[in-house]
């Protein structure tokens, strides 16, 4: 036994909030906190990540240990070897920054960056609704649409880290030569816009739209039906490509049971092959738990 114990740290960095967790070498969760993401982006957010790790590290002093592995999930594409981040519209200035190098320089420890939805997939595989699966996907629906993939029992992030970047997934009827894409149909803004086009007023968020639909607003119900139909098409597309055991739905819109029911109905109209879908069991903590799990793996691999 060494005199100081090793700890690990997982962070889920979002456009509006940052969630951080401390775990022991077995990956067990010891502590977590959430704070708003620094809206100034760039170096300010990088410094915020450093401060978050230090804050968690301070908690280990009483335990005579230190943080030896850090995994950060980011809402963008992470290149596999260089760890450089791209396609990250919600955090300004992160594309121009070598975040991994900055963090490992400041913290003096191992850093891994991953796409946040990939980590959510990992979290569900380790602790949630995809335990024991060899082939599964985590479909995140909120402001945008993203996908994490588990193939042959392992997380797969693509040749350049861009697997599951399905905002541009072609959708729907294409005989007229028009190509509509998934995010343009199911993103929260697209859903609200569809309600307005149908004559609905006084709604600015999807959350309000759900409330309207639940209160019997037929237009709101039809708008959600339409969003669900596009999600169902994406899931059928996914299933035809990958033959998954389970599709886990997450994200602020994806976890709503009202939508899930509509998606299941729409899938039934599209295919007679059953597709198992279900809501994220870890909810909005899937990405954080996945990050901590990955950090635990990195810690054990590093000390082995």
């Amino acid at each position, binding site marked *: 036994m060494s005199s100081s114990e090793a700890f690990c740290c997982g962070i889920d960095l979002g456009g509006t909030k940052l969630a951080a967790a401390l775990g022991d070498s077995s990956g067990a969760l010891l502590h977590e906190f959430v704070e708003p993401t620094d809206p100034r982006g760039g170096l300010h957010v990088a410094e915020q990540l450093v401060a978050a790790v230090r804050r968690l590290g301070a908690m280990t002093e009483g335990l005579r240990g230190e943080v030896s592995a850090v995994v950060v999930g980011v809402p963008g594409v992470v290149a596999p070897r260089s760890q450089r981040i791209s396609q990250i519209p919600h955090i300004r200035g992160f594309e121009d920054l070598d975040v991994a190098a900055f963090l490992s320089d400041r913290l003096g420890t191992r850093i891994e960056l991953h796409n946040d939805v990939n980590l959510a997939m990992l979290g569900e595989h380790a602790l949630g609704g995809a335990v024991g699966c060899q082939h599964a996907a985590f479909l995140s629906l909120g402001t945008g649409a993203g996908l994490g993939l588990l193939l*042959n029992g392992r997380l797969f992030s693509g040749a350049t880290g861009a697997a599951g970047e*399905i905002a541009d997934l072609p959708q729907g009827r294409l005989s007229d030569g028009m190509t509509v894409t998934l995010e343009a149909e199911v993103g929260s803004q697209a859903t609200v816009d569809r309600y307005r086009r149908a004559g609905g007023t006084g709604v600015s968020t999807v959350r309000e739209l759900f409330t309207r639909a639940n209160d019997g607003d037929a237009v709101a119900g039809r708008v959600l039906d339409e969003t669900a139909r596009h999600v169902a098409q994406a899931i059928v597309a996914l299933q035809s490509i990958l033959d998954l055991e389970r599709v886990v739905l997450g994200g602020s819109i994806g976890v709503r049971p009202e939508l899930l029911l509509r998606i299941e109905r729409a899938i039934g109209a599209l295919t007679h092959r059953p597709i198992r879908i279900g809501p994220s069991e870890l909810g909005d903590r899937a990405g954080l738990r996945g990050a901590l799990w990955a950090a635990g793996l990195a810690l054990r691999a590093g000390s082995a």
Partner: protein
Amino acid sequence: MAIPVANVTRQLSSRTVFDALLHRSPISRAALAKVTGLSKQTTSEVIDTFVRQGLVRPAGRTRGNVGRTAVLYELSPDGGHALGIDLGARRLTVALADLAGRVLAERSEPTDPRGGAWVLDQIAYLAERLARENNTHPSRIRSIVLGTPGVVNPRNGTIELAPNISDLGHLNVVSLLTEKLGSAVVLENDINLALLGEIWHGCAQHVANIAYLSLGSGVGLGLYINGHLVRGENGAAGEIGYLPIGGDPLMAESREQGCLEYQVGAAGVLRRYRAAGGTVASTALEVFEQAAAGEPSAVQVVGQTAHLIGLAASAVVAVLDPQILVLGGSLGARPELAARVAAVLGSLAPRPVEVRTSTLGSRAGVVGALSVALRRLHEEFFGGSDLATALPLRLPPPRAA
């Protein structure tokens, strides 16, 4: 579950020596010891065992400068044979290779249109003839892989969703063929095998992440991810005929045949050609040939087809981010397609992806079947399948007989 350490060590030595023989024959004992890092004694023990088993034979002597010459060894051509079979709706192709991976013979003929048991008889007859023509007793064929359209059920060896060959789905193809051929038959989806063929001998060598999009009688996808095939939960990964692209996914035809397949499968190409007023071509391939000759209806239909394949490719790239996308199959490998598919991808995909056209063409499936059959033969003879992950055997580089 634990394997005795002595066994593991012996298996590792066997595999290491075999790998060197596969890639460096003919080779002396001293050179084998040098390249494997094993002791001369261990190397000699392994070689002696292989020679006793008839898997390795002497192949002349080194031409020495000074001093004694040494015996050279190579894999014995009679050590055992591998058979690859590609069973298509129209054509049946069979290829035979020796232990060292030399392709000895390849034969192709029209698939028996009566389907079912007739096709299985045809396969057995062709395999036997190929063996005898190469002075090999059929019993020397020790490893057989059959590629077939449709979804191979990984649990019971039956074929599902194989609408293009009649009555095949009712039969237990694995046990019937194993009985006829006298050696275990392994079934694999034909498109997966075509992909493995391109990886071994074709346009996709040394690439770890590949999407192989095949267009022929039907449309399908093979996926190779981090060095492994992706078959999915029920063996149905890559059945992209069911992509909701190209038409109304709620139509009965879309639900039954698949939305994309209904449009771009060979039958769909011909149907759309006739609907566009085309009268000259009577097969999908002829529609492509007419398009190349400038016939307006054919040009229109091939253009639409390329566009739809481009959209399907865009969906695959968005989901999987492969390093390369390979176009194959009797229609997919047509020169008309690649540039247009790349153009659609360029307009939709967030990043460029390299599009390659199959270099093996219609041979891809049988070459892939042979590569899997060889790998299984090597695993059987050179043991230690427990070690397959730790020390995978590499297939020999491409070479003809």
